[in-house]
């Protein structure tokens, strides 16, 4: 086991990995960037979300006039779905994302329920509640940590080094549940309250888009973006009971 041999081996692995990777940073090109827009919808009957009983946490319960519902499947009018992550799984990787992602704990809920970020993109986690939260992202590939965040304390600064879909929970408030979707690209979007997403600043070319819903899984489709054009890409999930 000579170190030199191992280094050469590591380089060989790297070169083969680099040759095989479908992702690449865009070179300078004299064309206008395009975009992709679309709507996420579902067919069938989505599973019923249940009301959350926050009686154990009065400071949170009184912030909600009506009971908060679970958010695993966020069905919206017109058979659309919110909180679906759409990202480029093959194609231009985009410039490294540098803006800070904000993740909040408010009313004993994670706001937003799902956030998408790039590896090494800075994230700030706030607690705007009058109770302590225990922010516990259950990562497997990235190091798993668990931190107490009492009311009125400064935000936690977090980055992740490896791509991973990380479920987040609070051990004190069992119902609190969210996701950090850490991707190795910056081209990502989470569908809004109307089930719409948009990816902007895409250099013209071929893309593979992946849409991920935490209970319904993933779907992919190929999209070609022209110079300065807006391509359409709709996804339809088949609602399954779980």
């Amino acid at each position, binding site marked *: 086991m000579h170190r030199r041999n191992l*280094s050469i081996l*590591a380089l060989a*692995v790297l070169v083969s990995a680099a040759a095989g990777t479908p992702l690449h940073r865009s070179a300078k090109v004299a064309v206008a960037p395009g975009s992709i827009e679309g709507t996420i919808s579902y067919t069938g009957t989505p599973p019923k979300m249940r009301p959350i009983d926050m009686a154990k946490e*009065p400071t949170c319960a009184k912030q909600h006039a009506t009971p908060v519902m679970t958010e695993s499947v966020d069905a919206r009018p017109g058979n659309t779905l919110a909180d679906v992550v759409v990202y480029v799984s093959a194609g231009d990787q985009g410039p490294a994302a540098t803006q800070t992602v904000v993740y909040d704990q408010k009313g004993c809920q994670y706001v937003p329920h799902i956030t998408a970020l790039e590896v090494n993109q800075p994230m700030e986690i706030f607690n705007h509640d009058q109770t302590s939260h*225990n922010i516990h992202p259950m990562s497997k590939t990235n190091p798993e940590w668990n*931190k107490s965040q009492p009311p009125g*304390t400064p935000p936690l600064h977090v980055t992740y080094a490896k791509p991973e879909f990380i479920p987040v929970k609070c051990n004190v408030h*069992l119902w609190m549940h969210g996701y950090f979707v850490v991707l190795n690209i910056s081209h990502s979007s989470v569908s809004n309250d109307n089930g719409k997403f948009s990816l902007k600043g895409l250099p013209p070319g071929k893309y593979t888009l992946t849409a991920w819903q935490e209970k319904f899984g993933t779907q992919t489709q190929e999209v070609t973006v022209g110079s300065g054009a807006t391509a359409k890409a709709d996804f339809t999930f088949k609602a399954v009971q779980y």
Partner: protein
Amino acid sequence: MTLQTSQRRLIATVGVLVFAAANVSGAQESRIGVLTGHAAAGKKEYRRFCIGCHGPDGDGLGENAQWIDPKPRDFTAAVFKCRSTPTGTLPTDEDLSRSIDRGFVTSNMPSWLPLTGQTRADLVAYIKTFSPRSREGHGTPIVVPAETPRTVESILRGRALFQKMECWKCHGPAGHGDGPSASTLTDSKDNPIRPYNFAAGSRFKCGDTNEDLYRVFMTGLDGTPMPSFADNVKPAEAWDLVHFLRTLQPLKTTEAAAWKAWLPTHANTLKPIGPEAEQH
């Protein structure tokens, strides 16, 4: 511009890989004090002593595992409760060694002190080979400053923190492990887990001393619901908490004696711990 970024990333990746390759031999060894443990030697000992519970692949799925609760540690995940290092980082070789020495009270993991120091060092070296993460290296151990005096004032400050930091939500207002969230707790493998019951007076999993208890707050018990308080509890406050927690145990400690002497004449000045106190 973006090309430069990609080049920079490539260079960084090459650097990391070369560094990792150079450290492979390091990952096969452990250092415990003056001893150097070797994974190859540790493998033989592991197959003799550890394999039954932790399994041939170190994933905690040995043939005895199904009968055991709490479950044996999964070394492939490299998530360890008892560390001297911050939450989310790997423990030092000494931390792993101390866990083997001490065993885990209220679990099936016995103390392995009867083994020689060299054997235990070899086991640490071998255990680390189950996870590629061990190449990252361990975290920087937290600094444990000198303990503050074990006074009633310190205990009272610790009691206020027990309320403020909401320790009672899991550990219960009297530390009986029966707080409102206690019944809902699960570990990172979704197995039910109980918060420590101070009234049971059993030893702490990560060591008996006040310093060990201090370390538990500041590092958290990774893989369990117990978080790290390092970002929001100052060292002096952590010592106050330690002193208060000692009064919850049915043990003869300096703190318990001081509390017992003070309490009968002052009990009516104390606000109860728990949700009632929040509303005042």
